[in-house]
């Protein structure tokens, strides 16, 4: 049981490049989330999904896209990287009922 797995752990992008941050969970959780964390700050919600085929925007969705074709996977796509997207990205999941959120170990992204 691996929990929530994020890849890659680190990435440096040039302005305008694209990339996909991968997130997968093996706990059969319906709810999945993408957060970003800027230095010294709390986590801010980018996108979320309440089940396969269903996604919606969080507080800071601009510049990002997501998909949820399976229960396990919830990739986050950056189409045109900007320096403002330099941050640490966390994926999380939870099941219906309760507050047992499981977080991945994060992806540290730098856009130069």
């Amino acid at each position, binding site marked *: 049981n691996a929990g929530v797995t994020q890849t890659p752990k680190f990435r440096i992008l040039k302005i305008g490049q694209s990339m996909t941050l991968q997130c997968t969970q093996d706990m059969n959780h319906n*709810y999945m*989330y993408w*957060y970003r964390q800027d230095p*010294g*700050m*709390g*986590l*801010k*919600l980018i996108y*979320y999904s*309440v089940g396969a085929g269903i996604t*919606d925007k*969080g*507080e800071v969705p601009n510049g990002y896209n997501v998909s949820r074709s399976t229960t396990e996977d919830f990739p986050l796509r950056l189409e045109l990287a900007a320096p403002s997207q330099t941050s640490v990205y*966390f994926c*999380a999941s*939870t099941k219906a*009922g309760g*507050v*047992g*959120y499981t*977080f*991945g*170990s*994060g992806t540290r992204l730098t856009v130069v």
Partner: protein
Amino acid sequence: GESVGLHLPTLSVQEGDNSIINCAYSNSASDYFIWYKQESGKGPQFIIDIRSNMDKRQGQRVTVLLNKTVKHLSLQIAATQPGDSAVYFCAETSETGRRALTFGSGTRLQVQP
């Protein structure tokens, strides 16, 4: 929008002392309030939660207090240890809808040996 925030950005305590980390929240409709610990380079780690209809909950060396009258949440850590050094976040969520966590900005706890 609704937000959860913290009073103190950094708290320094002596090993063995008790620590108290505070949090103010504004969304009175939240169903749960949760404390997370985050060590450098890692994701948030669940510490303890409290349902909105409770005012106190105890775990191992930790106690969470909820004062709905003044919208205040606190985390008490007994006999603080060096391994408790980390950033602590309070968060809130609802049982319905998207069920996403709303985080505060964090308090850094430094334990002096």
